């Protein structure tokens, strides 16, 4: 079937042919490794670990002048930049403030954030497609109003700006922001539009490591051209599997760690690849958080499966290792991926002498208290205490591949667009609970399925004895559907006050998403908070340098 995506790609190929652009020459599947010269090829563990810089708000105001209702104001500009990823070469990236990963934005419960997002790209061909870079920003994990949720058709054009408003009223969790512009989300994220948004509250701060010992790990993979630029096969719809694994934008880095307990916020920002991290020592890793926040019971595992957009917070206890010892974080891989020589490696830890102030925790916790349920007065329930009896409806989502197209229940996002963005998969009542079963019927592919707005409790799988895996025993918004797998989950549609409206459901293999494996539901009235019309981006008339970024002091190199 010829799709609109194909039309886009034909145009790209044609234009690329005119321009002499190399658009991928690795054959039909798009999985060839990088084409770097030996001196430019990164060697595992030689890179120095780094954390994304933390952005400081440019202003703090107060809602209604009330000092108990603070609002932090941040500003980011989506723009081209150059990243030092490979030895001897620099790589053009399209990132937030021109860097990859984007600046980390740390949020606190009770402090709203308004994020001024300027599309600073030129009205000219982008990095990976010979077309301009339109954007839409999604804060993944936030129950934002529909108009601030990064709706795929809520487009910010070059030169335009949109101020996103985030409530920060839920429980602490690891969120991330990334581009969500339909048809080009994969290219936009792959070329750099992704950043961390750790969200804290008092419960999380009291029980889990903080500061130096609270480490974001953004895992991604990439292919490179001989000149150091990113390779991307724009004409295939299956996905991209790179041969070089990046951690916070560094190939297989080495991180210096003290003999203490560290907390790692592991985020998969690959556009397709899934991972199975494990320690080279075989020692346990302690899972303390999932997509939607802290686990109530800490789970010790030897490895876990993690797909695109899933967040897993883990503790690693380095106290048992000697100074000078190295411990590797490896990738055992999962079915339906493409592996290369070094994709079984992620990063290395090198234990160094202890120093500095005491850690915030001195023992691995066995249980965690994530505090009272926000919005309980409106009927919100604790996600992990939802039961099938709470559900007022049961629904099924079938993720399929038919006639070469990715579909959900036989529907594509193009079908949704053809109805004026009115077609809905479901229309649950706000604060109602439903039981959804997601089924992978697409053959030899896996799909990390993301449902916007909600957190859910997985209650069943069709494998693993019918139970969720150990790393799924916390609130989830991404559901890994391996080949022929199904997942059943309970979810409550907790909207903000006057926050009814439409939200997306899609495969987070971003290539599949761009190829229309996406539908939507509405919590409450679908005509409320129109995600495209309610708060449109406007032409940005402020000078480009009106919000110079200020970052917090960094930790010492390699830590």
């Amino acid at each position, binding site marked *: *079937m*010829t*799709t*609109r995506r194909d*039309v*886009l*790609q*034909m*145009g790209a*190929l*044609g*234009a*690329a*042919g*005119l321009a*002499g*652009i*190399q*658009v*991928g*020459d*690795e*054959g*039909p599947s798009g999985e060839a490794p990088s084409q770097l010269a030996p001196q430019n090829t990164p060697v595992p563990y030689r890179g120095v670990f780094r954390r994304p810089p933390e952005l400081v708000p440019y202003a703090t105001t107060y809602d209604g002048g009330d000092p108990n209702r603070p609002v932090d104001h941040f500003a980011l500009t989506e723009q081209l930049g150059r990243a030092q990823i490979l030895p001897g070469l620099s790589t053009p990236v399209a990132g937030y403030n021109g860097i990859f990963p984007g600046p980390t934005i740390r949020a606190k419960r009770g402090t709203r954030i308004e994020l001024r997002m300027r599309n600073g790209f030129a009205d000219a061909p982008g990095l990976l497609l010979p*077309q301009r870079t339109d954007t839409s920003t999604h804060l993944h994990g936030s129950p934002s109003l529909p108009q601030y949720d990064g709706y795929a*058709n809520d487009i910010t*054009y070059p030169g335009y700006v949109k101020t996103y408003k985030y409530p920060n009223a839920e429980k602490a969790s690891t969120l991330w922001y990334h581009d969500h512009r339909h*048809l080009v989300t994969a290219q936009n994220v792959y070329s750099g539009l992704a950043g961390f948004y750790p969200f804290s509250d008092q419960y999380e701060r009291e029980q889990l490591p903080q500061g130096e010992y609270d480490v974001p790990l953004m895992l991604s993979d990439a292919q490179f051209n001989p000149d150091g630029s990113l390779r991307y096969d724009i*004409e295939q719809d*299956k996905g991209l599997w790179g041969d070089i694994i990046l951690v916070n934008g560094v190939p297989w880095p080495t991180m210096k760690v003290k003999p203490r307990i560290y907390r790692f916020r592991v985020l998969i920002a690959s556009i397709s690849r899934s991972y*199975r991290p494990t320690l080279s020592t075989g020692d346990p890793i302690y899972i303390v958080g999932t997509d939607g926040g802290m686990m109530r019971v800490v789970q010790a*595992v*030897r*490895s876990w*499966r993690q797909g695109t957009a899933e967040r897993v917070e883990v503790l690693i206890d380095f106290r048992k290792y000697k100074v000078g010892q190295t411990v590797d974080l490896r990738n*055992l891989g999962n*079915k*339906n*991926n*493409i592996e290369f020589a070094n994709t079984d490696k992620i990063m290395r830890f090198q234990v160094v002498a202890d120093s500095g102030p005491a850690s915030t925790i001195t023992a691995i916790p066995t249980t965690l208290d994530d505090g009272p349920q926000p919005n309980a007065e409106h009927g919100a329930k604790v996600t992990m205490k939802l039961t099938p009896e709470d559900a007022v409806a049961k629904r099924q989502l*079938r993720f*399929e*591949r*038919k006639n*070469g197209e990715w579909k959900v229940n036989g529907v594509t996002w193009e079908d949704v*667009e*053809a109805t*004026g*963005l009115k077609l809905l998969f479901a229309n649950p009542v706000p604060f109602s609970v439903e039981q959804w079963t997601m*089924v992978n*019927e697409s*053959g*030899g*592919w896996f799909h990390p399925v993301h449902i916007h707005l909600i957190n859910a409790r997985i209650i069943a799988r069709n494998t*693993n*004895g019918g139970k969720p895996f*150990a790393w799924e025993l916390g609130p989830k918004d991404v559901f890994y559907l391996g*080949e022929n*797998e199904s997942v059943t989950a309970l979810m409550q549609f907790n909207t903000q006050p006057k926050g009814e409206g439409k939200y997306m459901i899609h495969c987070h293999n971003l290539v599949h998403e761009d190829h229309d494996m996406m539908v939507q539901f509405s919590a409450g009235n679908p005509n409320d908070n129109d995600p495209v019309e309610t708060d*449109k981006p406007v032409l940005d008339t402020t000078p480009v340098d009106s919000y110079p970024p200020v970052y917090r002091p960094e930790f010492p190199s390699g830590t």
Partner: protein
Amino acid sequence: MTRAVRVGVALLLTSVVAGCSAGATTTIGPGASSPASAASTPGVAAEPGTDRGDGRPQVTYDGLMVRRRVVIAILPTPGADVVSLRQELDKAAAALQTPLSDISPSVLDPAEQQRLAPDLTVVLPAGATVADAGKLIDPSKAARAAFPDVQDYLVAPVLVHDLRFTVSASNPSEMVAAIAREGILADALGDYSTSAGSGRLDITYTGPLLSDDLVEQVRRGIARGEGVEPSSVTVSPRSTAGVGVDMAKEPLPAPVVEEEVAAPHGHGAAALPATAPVVGEPSQSSLWGVALVAVAVWLIVMLVMLMRWNAKAGD
């Protein structure tokens, strides 16, 4: 749309626009070959050799480890209770002394799997034939009436892997729990069975063909549970009875042929009425058109100017 057609149309676009530009070159990957050679495999969407996609994986664990079985794949009517349907099938199968087992629909040829997208796939016991399946779910009206919740179905002979992984285990029960907790086998195999003996653990699997790489991954996943080398995990036929399959002699399944249409359907403003850009903002699709037309016009203008310049120079 396939790569071949895409490349071909892209080349056509390129040549139409660039045809008047002397010496213009196109650079596409060698994988694209030429439109003529690419056209020799029209509409094929397969991922040969791997476990990714719908192509047949590379299989050298064959012989008695690969068997021919017969499956029934069913697409129920919308809203049908699949659990009840499965029970009805079991009841009918019991009457024919043909016990059924669940199996992954990935055993089907990819074309059939994409066409039918079954909700329920069951495998008949070893030795059962297509005729036996026909008795169970006969296409005659009378038999169909017995399963009113069946919208469409397929009876097909398939190839399955029928494997036994064996490892020495100091505490087989603990090892079973450790393997299950890690989930590597659940990811790789879906369903599998365990049999804990004295100092030994057997893990058996009957399902879609596994690539050699995936078999090795399973061995590693099992070995981790006991802290031994993957080579300590043996792979053998689940049963030594019957006849196996030499995969080197097996024809490849029919490829998925993706439908081609003469005119691509909407990517324009008509498909995006609610999201059309503000006045003055071109849509993405119109950008393409504008860009291509602009380039074409620019090339033509340049060519005309060049010809005029040449003419003047000749004067």
